[in-house]
């Protein structure tokens, strides 16, 4: 890891932008990602040419999980761009094979899952549902419906503000065209999934639908584990940064969904600023502040429009599994007052994923904050912890 001017963790839009802008100035950049190839979730196997060209000037190491704070020992500036995962809210049947995240299904399709002829129901919230529906259609699936939990008035207000973001408006029109004929139900959410060995049918509020695939995502949760292990400060679940995307931890910058949820353009501009700032190109970075401000405003509109409705907290039945690693059920959790207490008394969040899935759900269901992160940031070989 020595011999580099900058280390970027995460090769999604924010990480790629940080790496490329730093590389343009002649800096030697190393990019690490736990996925086998660059692109992150949104550009999986599909990095736009503008960025792909510069990416060839940086060293990319895929399949490389960063599990602790040993990166700091190299004294090289670090940009964290570890992105986000999806928020999943438990409902009866959500553990059935064939039920995936919305972004989860998108990732599987982009990594080679052939969905031709399959009937898919998309549910949850946010523009991602439309993007995934469009992808599924292009790949030959039949999207039987899109269920958006946000109420129609909130969606209309959001759409009415889109004229301020011409690129988003254009994307929206293109998406809309690709989804002509697909039933779209606002104010609608999944209540239960049925099936013997895999999902066969889904009940939404008001109607039932047969399906082969049910993809449900309730928005995004930042992957802050590594930032926490490195000693960055968090506020409201996101990494705190200054105007240069610098965290409270010396030598560490953060960009993209780590600092807030708001789409690819927001991640890109934050990544550019972080990459430039981390190698000392502050005046170049400053030129991007106004563009960032615009995308931060867009992010705020997104957050308001797609706020989660309270009914989603009441989808579980007593026997609904909440922690999928340890098969801990809703009824096992109701006695306890905090994430840690529930964990110690029931094993909720003690499994392989270490609460990456149920932790965020329990924050919505019970209001529990779990800020305890210990190495490894993700499961690792014991031998990986033996290297000091």
């Amino acid at each position, binding site marked *: 890891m020595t011999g580099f001017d900058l280390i970027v963790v995460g090769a999604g839009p924010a990480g790629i932008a940080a790496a490329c802008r730093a590389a343009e100035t002649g800096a030697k950049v190393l990019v690490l990602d736990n996925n086998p190839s660059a692109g992150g979730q949104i550009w999986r196997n599909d990095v736009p040419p503008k960025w792909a060209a510069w990416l060839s000037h940086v060293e990319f190491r895929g399949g490389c999980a960063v599990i602790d704070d040993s990166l700091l020992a190299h004294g090289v500036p670090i940009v964290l761009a570890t992105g986000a*995962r999806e928020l999943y809210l438990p409902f009866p049947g959500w553990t059935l094979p064939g039920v995936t995240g919305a972004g989860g299904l998108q990732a599987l399709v982009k*990594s080679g899952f*052939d969905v031709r002829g399959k009937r898919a129901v998309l549910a949850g919230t946010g523009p991602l549902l439309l993007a995934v529906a469009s992808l599924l259609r292009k790949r030959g699936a039949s999207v039987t419906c899109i269920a958006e939990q946000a109420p129609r008035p909130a969606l209309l207000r959001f759409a009415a503000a889109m004229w301020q973001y011409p690129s988003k408006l254009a994307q929206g029109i293109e998406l809309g065209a690709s989804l002509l004929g697909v039933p779209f139900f606002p104010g609608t959410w999944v209540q239960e999934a049925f099936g013997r060995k895999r999902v066969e049918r889904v009940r939404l509020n008001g109607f039932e639908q047969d399906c082969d695939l049910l993809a449900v995502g309730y928005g995004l949760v930042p992957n802050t584990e590594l930032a926490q292990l490195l000693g960055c400060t968090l506020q409201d679940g996101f990494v705190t940064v200054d105007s240069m995307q610098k965290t409270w931890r010396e030598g560490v910058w953060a960009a993209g969904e780590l600092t807030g949820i708001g789409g690819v353009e927001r991640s890109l501009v934050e990544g550019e600023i972080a990459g430039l700032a981390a190698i000392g190109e502050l005046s170049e970075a400053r030129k991007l502040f106004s563009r960032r401000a615009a995308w931060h405003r867009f992010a705020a509109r997104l957050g308001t429009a797609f706020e989660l409705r309270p009914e989603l907290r009441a989808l579980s039945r007593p026997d609904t599994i909440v922690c999928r690693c340890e*098969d801990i059920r809703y009824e096992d959790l109701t006695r306890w007052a905090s994430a840690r207490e529930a964990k110690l008394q029931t094993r909720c969040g003690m499994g392989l994923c270490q609460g990456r899935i149920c932790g965020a759900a329990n924050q919505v269901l019970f209001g529990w904050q779990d800020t305890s992160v210990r190495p490894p940031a993700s499961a690792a070989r014991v031998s990986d912890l033996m290297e000091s």
Partner: protein
Amino acid sequence: MTIYLDGRTLTVERGATVAAAMLNAGVSVFRESVSGEPRAPLCGMGVCYECMVTIDGERELSCQTLCQEGMRISTR
């Protein structure tokens, strides 16, 4: 490319992950949960561990592993 899944021979496209290849082969159960429930990929991005299988003798996330010629995959 050719890979082997629980004794079956599969032809897969280069660049596909093991999870995608398994789904394409009609596998719906990737693992059994601790209480014996059938499970399959949820997140598709290496977070949930529902897609863990044995690849060439090691427990791996199938959604984060690209298919390689001759790979042996077992769902146990």
